[in-house]
């Protein structure tokens, strides 16, 4: 069967499944729309959280990042999983006990301040919008490559699908589609990895194959890979990093940021009890780990396969002729994600670290450049797997992008309809009116996200800096202090959030350009100019420390929070007894 037909079949079947769920899981009340009625089983919520969390970046880009950076990029693995430990112990159970619908809701009530609520809404919207554009763009790429429609058409199809189940079902529809999407994406990620691991190491479990022996050479896989990349002038795959401070701060920023991202936090509002919120965080991490333990194996094996493709007789021998390149390279050249330029005019592909001097071999610069995303997308083709595996990858990439997009859109729309409209502008709005406002906000959010996906602004590429920086520097500290301290008051919280946020943004803008406008950066964005070698991507952790410190100092100098607020803090700490959500 034609590859295009196979792809359409796989993607079509997965979409039909999502539509079916959407019709089954319609939301009838705001509680169903915002938190799926609070009746989701902890294991199901764990699965939905995993799909919510694992975006196009995890599915498509992470293995490519790891393949390019080797050990140095392990920060992504530790950072994007370690946040769940913080979430499980420091936030999720208490916020579940609090029992309201949104993250700004807790901040607004706990710090008895409209300003705090609005700052939280602003942080939430900026972080989530930045994040959602990446998902829409990821869905667009998957469509254009696998379904042969152009990127914008692909984006519109993706939006219509999300619109259908997100607007109809709210959190309820999103939850059960996310469960289905998790199953699709984990199968799609694992199957090619198993084939490749079998081929290279003889071990069917990729995570074990990574530390196993390379069948062909009999050497350990990682030792073989180290040897190949060193011969091609790259740094060793397993090489240590020179700046440990930056690696620690970057990992910490990703961890705190993960725990502070509203679309992840609100997933824990959907389980029935506090005890379930604790279990559910563990299940979420197990489901996430199934992909995250496989990703580093995919990364090293894909890099090895790519090198072997270009140098079929070993890196010391001649590389392949451009005319004899494999078919997958031709397919991906059409998308411009792989490009070749014959710099020394010998008709062969020289692929190595262009900064290394290889003139003794007659090489005149690296001739093959590739977008690192293709390592996952083209992996089945590079490893010569059957056509249906490629169809799976297409459905899986879309599942990863759509599930995260839907979670983010819900976080955005509930902040607008609940925190802005119901809690700030029109407190008298009826239950029915609020549900309608929630659906309308969702519609607007999807439309805006689609537009921005088609015309990505400068900040879209800065998801890690902006979304994780904001979540780490503003949202996480204020939530944690709200639970673990009775003394932090409204003034301290607002001052802490604003100072953490502003200093983090200034540090990012100094190197990345003010509001990411090209040419407005004050300093070149490279390690020589970073203060103490701290990258703008790693600064969120510093912003969090500033937030904690300022909030503590300002609160100590001003009056204690009123008694009813101290009682509220007490009530979220103990699972027993009514939460604050009785008025819903």
């Amino acid at each position: 069967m034609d590859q295009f037909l196979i792809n359409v079949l796989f993607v079509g079947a997965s979409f039909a499944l999502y539509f079916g769920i959407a019709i089954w899981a319609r939301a009838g009340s705001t509680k169903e729309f915002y938190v799926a009625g609070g009746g989701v089983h902890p294991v199901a919520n764990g699965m939905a959280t995993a799909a919510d969390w694992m975006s196009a970046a995890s599915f498509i880009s992470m293995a490519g990042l790891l393949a390019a950076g080797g050990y140095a990029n392990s920060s992504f693995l530790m950072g994007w999983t370690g946040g769940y430990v913080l979430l499980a112990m420091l936030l999720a159970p208490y916020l579940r006990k609090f029992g309201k619908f949104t993250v700004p809701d807790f901040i607004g009530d706990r710090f008895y301040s409209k300003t705090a609520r609005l700052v939280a809404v602003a942080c939430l919207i900026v972080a989530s919008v930045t994040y959602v554009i990446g998902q829409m763009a990821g869905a667009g790429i998957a469509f254009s490559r696998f379904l042969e429609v152009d990127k914008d058409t692909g984006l519109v199809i993706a939006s219509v699908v999300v619109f259908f189940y997100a607007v109809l079902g709210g959190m309820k529809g999103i939850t059960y589609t996310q469960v289905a999407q998790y199953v699709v994406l984990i199968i799609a990620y694992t199957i090619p990895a198993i084939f490749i691991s079998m081929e290279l190491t003889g071990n069917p479990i990729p995570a074990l194959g990574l530390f196993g022996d390379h069948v062909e050479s009999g050497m350990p896989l990682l030792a073989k890979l180290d040897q190949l990349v060193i011969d091609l002038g790259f740094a060793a795959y397993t090489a240590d990093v020179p700046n440990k401070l930056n690696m620690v701060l970057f990992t910490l920023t990703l961890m705190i940021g993960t725990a502070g991202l509203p679309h992840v936090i609100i997933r824990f509002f959907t389980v029935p009890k506090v005890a379930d919120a604790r279990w559910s965080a563990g299940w979420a991490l197990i489901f996430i780990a199934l992909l995250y333990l496989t990703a580093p194996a995919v990364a090293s094996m894909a890099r090895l396969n790519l090198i072997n493709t270009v140098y079929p007789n070993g890196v010391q021998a001649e590389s392949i002729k451009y005319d004899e390149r494999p078919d997958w390279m031709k397919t991906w050249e059409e998308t411009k994600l792989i490009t070749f330029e014959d710099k020394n005019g010998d008709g062969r592909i020289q692929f190595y670290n262009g900064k290394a001097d290889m003139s003794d071999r007659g090489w005149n610069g690296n001739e093959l450049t590739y977008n690192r995303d293709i390592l996952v997308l083209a992996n089945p083709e590079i490893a010569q797997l059957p056509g249906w595996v490629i169809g799976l990858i297409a459905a899986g990439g879309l599942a990863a992008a759509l599930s995260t997009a839907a979670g983010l859109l819900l976080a955005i729309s509930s902040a607008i309809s609940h925190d802005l409209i119901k809690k700030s502008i029109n407190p008298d709005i009826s239950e029915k009116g609020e549900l309608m406002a929630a659906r309308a906000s969702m519609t607007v959010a999807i439309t805006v996200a689609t537009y921005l996906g088609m015309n990505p602004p400068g900040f879209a590429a800065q998801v890690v800096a902006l979304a994780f920086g904001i979540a780490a520097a503003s949202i996480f500290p204020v939530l944690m202090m709200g639970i673990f301290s009775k003394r932090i008051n409204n003034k301290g919280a607002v001052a802490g959030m604003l100072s953490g946020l502003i200093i983090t943004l200034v540090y990012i803008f100094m190197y990345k350009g003010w509001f990411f406008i090209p040419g407005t950066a004050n300093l070149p964005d490279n390690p020589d100019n970073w203060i103490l070698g701290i990258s703008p991507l790693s600064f969120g952790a510093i912003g969090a420390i500033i937030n904690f410190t300022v909030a503590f100092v300002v609160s100590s100098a001003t009056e204690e929070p009123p008694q009813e607020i101290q009682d509220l803090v007490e009530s979220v700490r103990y699972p027993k007894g009514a939460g604050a959500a009785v008025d819903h």
Partner: protein
Amino acid sequence: MVDDKSKAVAYWQANVRLIIGSLVVWAIASYGLGILLRPMLAGISVGGTDLGFWFAQQGSILTFIGIIFHYAWRMNKLDRDMGLEE
């Protein structure tokens, strides 16, 4: 709200102690063994590389899962023992 003040205080202190202990393990597995202490583990070889690399790419994640389930189990038990469960 909890009626018995001293029980409530004991519960919260036990929770905070458990969290601090868990965070120490969390930090050692990732920032310690995975990053800062990696040069000291260079002698311990794991599948073609060293133990620090394994912790950075797999060991830390497995440790995190263990920490969360241990915390959930201990706290849910504490809830029941103190009669504070929902």
